[in-house]
Structures are given as structure tokens and as C-alpha cells.
């Protein structure tokens, strides 16, 4: 676990222009070892999700650098950053963010459109089926998102995040919108994925989950308040 797969150096993020500015992150520096299980905790509105979005290359910092697997992603072009997201990072959002007009299987397949792990249509389909099997939803392959429960949708989102065999899985409050039973099911799959060797970073309000983390980052007022 000593290889560092994600490192940030003095990252700042300021939203807004002119006199109305919000200093969301103030000089955040952290290191996440490869294969670790990390949690980011902290009060709402203090910059957890902003940090997560920056780590995943969904947003760019105002200042500082973010090195993912040896590449400073702040210096990448939009196209290269998108390629990096496809090949190195799997994202899971609080509100699932599945494409409503696609089936569960297609939602998993679509991520493979952008990666390099599976190119042929049959190969994609086979792999998507395996991933749905992994998250316990083989029977829901042809269901549309509106035919799935919240927990099931989140499991499809996890399967999608794994579609390109990325080393890193970033989850932004993955159980924040689920009941306790669904939360348990989703977490079970996340632990299983971590054990397979993936680096997992979760933003969470769940203290029980946080206690299981290898590394715990607390974000408060845009700063890292403590690291265990």
C-alpha cells in the first residue's frame, strides 16, 4: 500500500468571480496509497464533494496540482482529461446518474464506449453481464432505471464504474439516498470491490463506514482538518 496513486499539492478551489467568491478548498494536500480504502468526511457544504470532483478530474482546481497515477491532471487538455476519467477512474454519484432511456445492461455497456477494456459489441455485452452478476443484479439486465429501486440503481452505477477496469473508484455519498437495507447491500459490494485490489475513495456521512477506512480525511471549512 505504499505506492501513492493520488496526490494533491496545495489545492485551492474558488467558485465565482469578482466580489462574490466562495473559497471552497483552501490549500488541500493529501496522498492516497494504491489499493487503500479512504473516506472523506466532514459537515455538509465544507468542500468534500468539491475535493472528490477535483480528484476525479470532473473539475479543475483554481490552484495547486493533482497527480493521479503519476500524471498531473491539472495540466491535461479537456480531451486527455476525459480519456483519463475513462481509463483510470470509476465514479459513483449519490443520485446514481444512470441514463434513463437505457437498460441496466446498456448503462454498464455505455461506459465501455469510452474505455479500452472491451471494444467489440459482444465483448461489451458479456462483460456488462458479468458486472451486473457481480453486483447481484443479473435478473435486472433489461430493466430501465425507473423500474429499479434506489439500491439497485446504485449497484448498476457501481457496475458501470467498474466497466473499464479502472484502478480507482470514487464514490460520492453512494448510500446517502438509500434506506438502511439497500445501504448494507451497496456497501457489501463496495468492500468486495476493494478487496479485489481497487483503490476506493468514499465521501460519506456514515460514521460506521468511516471507521472501516484505512485513511480518513476530514474536510472542514475547505481545509483538511485531520487525517488518520
Amino acid at each position, binding site marked *: 500500500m505504499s505506492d501513492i496513486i493520488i496526490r494533491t499539492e496545495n489545492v485551492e478551489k474558488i467558485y465565482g468571480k469578482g466580489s462574490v467568491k466562495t473559497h471552497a478548498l483552501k490549500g488541500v494536500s493529501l496522498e492516497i496509497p494504491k489499493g487503500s480504502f479512504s473516506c472523506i468526511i466532514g459537515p455538509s457544504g465544507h468542500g468534500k464533494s468539491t475535493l472528490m470532483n477535483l480528484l*476525479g478530474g*470532473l473539475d479543475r482546481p483554481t490552484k495547486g496540482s493533482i497527480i493521479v497515477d503519476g500524471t498531473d491532471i491539472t495540466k491535461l487538455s479537456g480531451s486527455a482529461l476525459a480519456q483519463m*476519467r*475513462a481509463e483510470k477512474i470509476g465514479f459513483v454519484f449519490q443520485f446514481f446518474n444512470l441514463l434513463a432511456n437505457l437498460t441496466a445492461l446498456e448503462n454498464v455497456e*455505455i*461506459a465501455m*464506449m469510452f474505455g479500452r477494456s472491451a471494444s467489440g*459489441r459482444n465483448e461489451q455485452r458479456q462483460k456488462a453481464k458479468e458486472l451486473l452478476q457481480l453486483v447481484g443484479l443479473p435478473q435486472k439486465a433489461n430493466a430501465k432505471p425507473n423500474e429499479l429501486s434506489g439500491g439497485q440503481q446504485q449497484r448498476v452505477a457501481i457496475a*458501470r464504474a467498474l466497466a473499464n477496469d479502472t484502478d480507482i473508484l470514487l464514490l460520492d455519498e453512494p448510500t446517502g439516498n438509500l434506506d438502511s437495507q439497500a445501504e448494507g447491500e451497496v456497501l457489501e459490494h463496495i468492500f468486495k470491490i476493494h478487496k479485489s485490489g481497487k483503490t476506493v475513495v468514499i465521501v460519506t456521512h456514515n460514521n460506521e463506514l468511516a471507521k472501516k477506512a484505512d485513511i480518513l480525511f476530514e474536510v472542514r471549512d475547505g481545509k483538511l482538518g485531520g487525517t488518520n
Partner: protein
Amino acid sequence: MNIFALVLKNLFRRKGRFIFTLLGISIGMASFTALLSMGGSMRGEVTRQAQAMGANLMIMPENICVFNQIAIVTGETISESLEYGVFEKVSVLEGITVIPHLTQKAAVKDNPAVIGGILPEETRLFRGWEIADGAYFTSQNEDAVVIGSDFANRNEVSVGDEVTIRQETLPVIGILDPTQSNDDGMMFVPLTVAQRIFQKEGYISYMSAKVDDMAKMDSYIAAIVDTANVQVSTDEQLLGSVLAILGSVNITLQLVAGVALIAAAFGIINTMMTAVYERRREIGILQAIGGKRSTIFKIFVLESGLYGLLGGIIGVAAGLLAAVFAGEFISQIGANDLLKGASPEASVDISLVLMAVSFSLVMSILSGLYPAWKASGLTPMEAISYE
């Protein structure tokens, strides 16, 4: 899953909007194609009819308007006339063979018909007519009718029947072999009979002439003009001026259709812009899982392109059908044989089809560029945060 499969799913997700946008393009393309096709048919038909006249020169009343020139080419009646004496003067000129025409319109068997008054023997030789059924005129003032093959078929007239023209009943003595000219849709009577029936004694409508030596065309024209106050055009000049008018009419009609197409293009832009706003979150999701800006751009351009391709195919098919049916309808109600060339064979010009579908495709892709640019310009965060 590939981009094309995703685009198809996106297109059909809002069926109502898809159908209405497609209808907009299809109607625009249908009107454009119909007018283009009808214009092409008219052009082809005028050219064919002018060539079938078999004349090198047309001798018409002086200062004849272009509409009457079109009427001569298409076998319609003209509003002006020449004195018969002019024909007599021109007919004695050396190196020129000339025949007179008196064309008039009347209702025959409850249908409008064009009746040609001719010098029977001279005209038969000039035009190269053959008799398909019955007999031909035996004298210059025989009270009888010879009809073109189309006229016979359309009005179910046979040899031995009688037809009434302006209250004069005449026997049909013969049917001409098809000539592929406007003669096929006409009825013919001897010139003196036509002058009597239509009270045009001493008058003709125009004359057709053939010359012995094409190299001396200018001197023939000068000789004719010196003989009488007439306007002389070569067949090429006449055809050229008629086609120029038709071309102007076509361009005007196509401009009108162009407005419909522009409206359809804005329909696509509107649909695609709505799609961009509705699918902002989806655009963000695609970006989050690795979709590049170029991919988002392609998705939206492909969607609008597919509207153009489908709308183009449907519109062109509908336009060609409309051209055929409208052609027949106009031909029936107006006794205007100009459009009789608008048969399916005449209208379905493969280059026109390819050109129209390509035009629809290109127009739609161009219409999709701005919405696609807007969609691809969103950052993942602003797209995914959209509620």
C-alpha cells in the same frame, strides 16, 4: 453499445417530438422536390414538344408575348392572329416550306380540347403523320375530324363516332399514329372548316416553316420579315425564350419551397436545443464516465443528421408522388398537356433524388452544429449539477 446505437435510442425516446420534427423536414423537402420535379418535367416536356414540331422556324404575329410563345410550343391556343394572306405571301418564298395553323379551344365530350385547323395534305407531309385507324382527309374542306392518339384514348373516341364542336357535329374519320408531340392530344379539322366553326374566316394563328439550307437561315428570316409584319423565331430561339420563362417560374417556386426548408431547419435547431437543455445532466454523466467533447458533439450532430436523412427520404418520396399526382390533376383540369410528362418515369430522376436527400442531410447537419457546440461546451460539473 456504440455512438450510433445511443443516437438512435435518443431519437426515439420522445416519439411525439421526433415525429413532428420529422414532419417539418419532410413537408419542406416534399414541396421542394415536387416543385423541382415538376419544373424538370415541364422543361423536358417543352423541349420534347418543341423538337417534335419538326420546324426550323416559327412565324408568329408581330410583338407576340412570351405566354403565346409558350402556347405555340405546347399546342395551346394563342390570343393573337395573322391574316391568311400572310401565309400566301410566305409560302411562295424560295427554299421555305410553310404550313399554317389555326388553334382554338372548345369543349368536346364535356372536356376541354384544342382543335387545330390545318391544310390537310401539306400538314401530313410536314409532320410526317401516319394513320393508325380509319382514313385521312380527302379534300381541303372536308367536314370531318382526325384526332390524335392521346385524345382518342382519353375521351374514348373511335373512328365512326361523332363529335360536336361549337354546335357543329362532325364525324371522326381517322386516328393518328402516336407522334410523341402535342399533336397526340389534339383534334384536327381542315383550315377552312376551323375558320368557319370559330368564325375566324381569313385568319390563322401562326405558321411553321422548314428551310432547305440551314446555313442560309438569316437570309430566309430576312425574306419572311420583308414580306409581312410578322415575328420570326428559330425553333432554338423559341425554345430558349420559353425555357427562360419556365426557369424563372421554377426559381420562384423553389424559393417558396426554400422558405419551407428554412422553417424546417429552424425546427431542427429548436428540437436539438431543447434536447441539449433537457439532457444536460445526461451530457454530464457521459463526460463523467469518459465521454470527450468531440463525442458529445458527434452525438448531437448525428441526431440532427438522422433527422435530415429520414426527413429527406420521406420528403423526397412524398414530393415525387405529389409531382405525379399534381401533374395529372393539373393536366386534367387545365387541359394543359405541359405536365403530361410528369409520369413516374419522367419524375423519378435519380440525380434529383440523391441531390434532394443530400441537401436535406447537409441542411440538418448544419442546423445541428450550434446545438452540438452548445452541448459539447458544457463542463462536466455544470452539466451534471443541472437539476
